[in-house]
């Protein structure tokens, strides 16, 4: 599905160069459900941006399917994002002036699907996340859990092969978080690869595998446990 080999990323901060990702190496197979964990500043957001083709990297290789993603033009990157990747954000990022239905349909707008057809498809996806009756509501009229469901429906509508979720439960209470994780599991069960960035061990425990980042490096569970005994206890 996707493979990173020796990916490095630097940020220029004033005169200093910050080495954010150091030789990041990992692979995610088709249909896997993976969590990326790390403390803040560990480089997990940067990693997610690179995986989502929202940001470039400086060296190494990122393979998405059988394509190397590197220094794409903006329009090409936009088109790959549109066709291969669905995004789910911590703060949902729904457009406030659009109804749930219109928000879900938005990716299809950029694919040039006619209005009628995309609204029809959007309605199906809303039904799939259990919000059929909320189609005409604005995000401001919905609860956090509902908003995240709309966002998930929006991420799914382009039939992506990969869902990238950035702290999808970060803004939700534990009960709602559980429901959202259930939904993501269901989606994974249909064969879509799901990658979740989180710092919540609860969430990570729901996935099949956890990749840990520390100071921009992928570390194995043992190394991680050395510095985080609390987490080590949670990992068998």
């Amino acid at each position, binding site marked *: 599905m996707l493979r990173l080999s020796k990916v490095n990323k630097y940020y220029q901060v004033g005169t200093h160069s910050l080495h954010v990702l150091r030789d990041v190496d990992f692979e995610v197979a088709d249909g896997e459900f993976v969590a990326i964990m790390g403390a803040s500043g560990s480089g997990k957001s940067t990693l997610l941006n690179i995986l989502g083709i929202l*940001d470039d990297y400086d060296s190494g290789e990122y393979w998405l399917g059988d394509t190397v993603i590197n220094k794409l033009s*903006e*329009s090409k990157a936009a*088109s790959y*994002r549109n066709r291969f990747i669905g*995004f789910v954000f911590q703060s949902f990022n729904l*457009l406030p002036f*659009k109804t749930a239905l219109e928000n879900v349909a938005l990716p299809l707008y*950029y694919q040039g699907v006619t209005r009628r057809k995309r609204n029809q498809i959007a309605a199906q996806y809303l039904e799939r996340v259990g919000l059929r009756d909320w189609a005409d509501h604005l995000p401001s009229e919905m609860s956090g859990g509902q908003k995240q469901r709309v966002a998930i429906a929006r991420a799914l509508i382009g039939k992506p092969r990969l869902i990238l979720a950035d702290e999808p439960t970060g803004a939700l209470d534990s009960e709602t978080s559980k429901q959202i994780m259930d939904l993501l599991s269901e989606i994974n069960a249909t064969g879509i690869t799901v990658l979740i960035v989180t710092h919540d061990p609860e969430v990570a425990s729901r996935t099949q595998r956890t990749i840990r980042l520390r100071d921009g490096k992928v570390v194995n569970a043992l190394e991680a446990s050395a510095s985080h005994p609390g987490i080590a206890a949670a990992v068998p």
Partner: protein
Amino acid sequence: MFDLDKWKEIWSTLRSNPLRTFLTAFGVFWGILMLMAMLGFGSAIQSGSQRQMKGMATNLLFVWGQQTTESYDGLPPGRGVRFNTADIELLRRLPSIEYLAPRLQLGGWMNNFTVSHESKNGTFTVMADYPELKHIVAFEYDAGRFINERDIAEQRKVVVIGRAVYEQLFEPGIDPINKHIKISGVYFQVVGLTRTLRGGNQGDRDANTLFVPFTTLKTAFNIGDRVGFFAMTAKPGTDGPELERQVREALSRHHRISPTDQLAIGSFNMFVMYSKFEMFFLVLQLVSWVVGGATLLAGVIGVSNIMLITVKERTKEIGVRKALGASPMSIVSMVMKESIVLTAFAGLIGVVAGVALLAGTGAILEHLPESPLGPPNVSLSTVLTAVAVLIGAGALAGVMPATHAASIKPIEALRAE
């Protein structure tokens, strides 16, 4: 272009901050309204003045005798210059003159005469004229005709009267033709009733004037060989100042006037007047475009400014759109369309308001008698140009915000909370 969805997108953004949209649109609206108002009133002043000058040839020259101011050929200064019938022959030989109308006012310049018909009478201007006058001052006739060659040759006692003369001397509905009226004790037969094409003072003067054949007046009132003044037009292709120079030269020689004595002969050159008028209106129109255009430009800059603020405020939204697969082009086109729609819509309302304003003012002016202003008109082509300029301006206003929007990086946008 006519995808309903794109319009909905534009509408929803513009609606999301109605006050700001309204104020921005108002800038453009006001700009185009001002431009139209200025052009309209410029044209009103122009058509008003042209109405005053209507019915008068534009290549017209008047010359009259004054007093010499220089001694010449043994003659002292201060000598009165009086034109006479010999000058008629002299000027007729000048090739640059198209029509020559020697004229004489009975009793002298600005003097009026008592004219009567049956028990009614009034005081009017009496002019002795040649048929050529009709080429210099255009009249229409409510009845009859103007003085003709036979009237001149036979020294007929006929008269052509103005509208006001008719209204003063005749009962309404009476046909004045062939009726006799008495001018200073002499009977003249009415052969024509004129209706002037000129407006204002000139038109009033025309309506209060009687025209008799030049030769008749001479004998009937024993005026001798005097000519009051000459009115003439230049042949096409001859310019006014050149004609004036030739006429002055011929008359000066004949009357033994110093060639450098400009004050001995008075003149009024319509050609020079007219080019001054034309220059004035050209400048007026230019000023209208510059001031109106600047107001419009201020409005357009307002649009650009607002779009830029809007784009900054929508950074996150644009980031989301990009993450979902919006290409930079689609973002550019979205912002540009918003800008064009806002500008064009506000501008069109301005055009409609402008047309209404001009039409309304025109209707009021029409009911004002003797208004110095004509109907304020703005030509369709001007309006269409303004609309095209607006749409272009809208696009221009959108360029900077749109490029800014396209350059927004999704990661930075999504990070912005």
